[in-house]
């Protein structure tokens, strides 16, 4: 009996591993290809039959980036903007999501509908009026302009996702704090936030990702090379007459590293149930 269960477990484990490996090929192969290409000289990237490791393995792509202070500045700008956006968005979104999840107030549905559908306005049509607004507010070509813009883009997602997370948490948690004499603020920061850390982390990573990879508004709202971010840096390598393929690949790989690191750092928040056992019926 025990041996049978053990065998079943083993089969399940192998099945899971196979599933994971297939998924990894689906997810990782293109990125792996990009990684390989970042070490090839430009001439071999389109060779057929495609080579896995080039005979002329070269770090030229990476060297170009590291030896150019302008390009390093792209990374710095991206970091400043993305980190600020993530923190500020989380701060604002958590509060708004709390209001949506735990309160019922006039205008709640309307506001919900509006922020949801604001997502639907194609950025390309919004670009020119928005640009005019930024110029009027004197936020053109500044960090603040970009940060506020990205907050506007990421807030709706963040609020909706956080509301979803808060909605999965039972009301008894709130009442626990209220019994102890806490108000709304205490309920939020003492109980709801610590308990929804996985949700906050995933929303935070998502916000970081959006602001790191955004191109159109980064280009429109920055003017000088000192303010530009990594996606613009990548596009600059696509000239009218020449494409620096390996440098593009290298820049993308380098650009993806901070998020990978973030993800690594916050991995443990995805493990284990923080809510299990907090409330006993």
């Amino acid at each position, binding site marked *: 009996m025990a041996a049978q269960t053990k065998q079943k477990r083993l089969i399940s484990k192998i099945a899971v591993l196979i599933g994971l490996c297939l998924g990894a090929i689906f997810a990782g192969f293109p990125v792996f290809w990009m990684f390989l290409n970042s070490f090839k000289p430009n001439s071999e990237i389109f060779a057929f039959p495609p080579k896995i490791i080039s005979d002329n393995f070269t770090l030229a792509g990476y060297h170009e980036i590291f030896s150019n202070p302008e390009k390093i500045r792209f990374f710095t700008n991206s970091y400043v903007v993305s980190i600020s956006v993530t923190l500020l968005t989380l701060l604002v979104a958590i509060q708004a999501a709390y209001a949506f999840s735990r309160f019922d107030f006039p205008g709640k549905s309307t506001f919900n509908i509006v922020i949801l559908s604001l997502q639907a306005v194609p950025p390309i049509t919004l670009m020119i009026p928005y640009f005019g607004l930024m110029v009027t507010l004197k936020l053109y070509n500044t960090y603040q302009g970009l940060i506020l813009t990205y907050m506007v883009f990421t807030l709706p997602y963040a609020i909706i996702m956080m509301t979803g997370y808060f909605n999965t948490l039972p009301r008894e948690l709130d009442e626990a704090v209220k019994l102890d004499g806490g108000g709304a603020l205490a309920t939020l920061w003492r109980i709801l936030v610590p308990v929804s850390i996985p949700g906050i982390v995933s929303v935070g990573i998502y916000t970081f990702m959006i602001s790191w990879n955004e191109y159109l508004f980064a280009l429109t709202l920055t003017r000088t090379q000192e303010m530009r971010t990594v996606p613009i840096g990548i596009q600059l390598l696509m000239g009218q007459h020449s494409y620096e393929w390996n440098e593009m690949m290298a820049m993308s790989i380098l650009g993806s590293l901070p998020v990978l690191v973030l993800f690594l750092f916050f*991995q443990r928040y995805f493990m284990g149930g923080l809510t299990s056992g907090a409330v006993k019926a």
Partner: protein
Amino acid sequence: MLHRLLGKLSSKKSKKVGVLRCEAGGSHSAAQPILLGISEKLMRRGCPVSASSLLRDRRGTSSLTILKKNLEPYAFISPTILLLVVLMVVPVGLVIKYSFYDNVIVNQFPKFVGLDNYFAIVKDEAFRIALVNTSMLTVGSVLAHLLIGLSFATLLNSGLISNFSKALFRMIYILPWLFTVAIIAILWRMILNPNGVINYILTTVHLTGSPIEWLSNEKTALLSVIFINIWAGYPFYMTSILAGLQGIPRDLYEAATVDGASAFQQFINVTLPQLRPIIISMTMLDLIWTSQQFALIWMTTGGGPMTATEMLGTYTYKLAFSQYQFSQAATSAVVLFVLSMLLAFFYVRNQKARD
């Protein structure tokens, strides 16, 4: 720190912090005590307590407190409202205004034409083709995202594999998310090139005879583009569901196992219902988001062979920056906006009904 802050917020020394309702009958079993703090202690002292209606009773509280309580939610959403009103309402309002003029920006003297642009758009065949293609892209992508996200998240959450493997695979699975759209487009164009690596593998294992024009053949272009979109977007679902899975209390699973439910039954009856609010929110967002997808399509196929991958996003872009018809582009944007508002309306109503 917060505790002291709360102390400061309330007025003087002896203040009322709340009211507990007593059960008239007074038996323990009738009450539903929540084992925390004060109520527990009172229970121990023999005072039956139900804390459920604690918050609702406002008798005896001052009008200031009532006002404060009413305004509380608004205080929480005020930074959001401020930001969105200042930065979004004006541009979106302008876009809506543009749709009522004959042409703006390139036309120095715009003329008001009412709903003419709307009639023109609806009659435009390209718009209808774009609408059809966009619906296929959206529905296909969202469904696939959901399925892939659920499967990956479940696999990653499985108790059968070590934490190290989980961490490793998690890292691999979020890779598509890490890249800007331009690079994803270039990468997939490289991979799906008729002389690219996919065709090379397929011809080497003799699955096909001649190179397949994935992105250039109208039969395969839309599917290829949908596939690329699926690849680029599934990590969103996966991480959100993964985070949601962490929030499901273990005891529910334990109870189900005790009841004799198989893993699959547990998935259907425990996991999915618990994940429902998250799944619905994400699906809503993804629907709206995919329907205005532009950059990925534009940079891979540019609207495709003939009109095979023409989407609302590319259609609008071409109106704006190729034909310089900003009013018509604004009209197309407003149509999308209204459709999404309808979708959002039903979503919010559904949420309210459930609550």
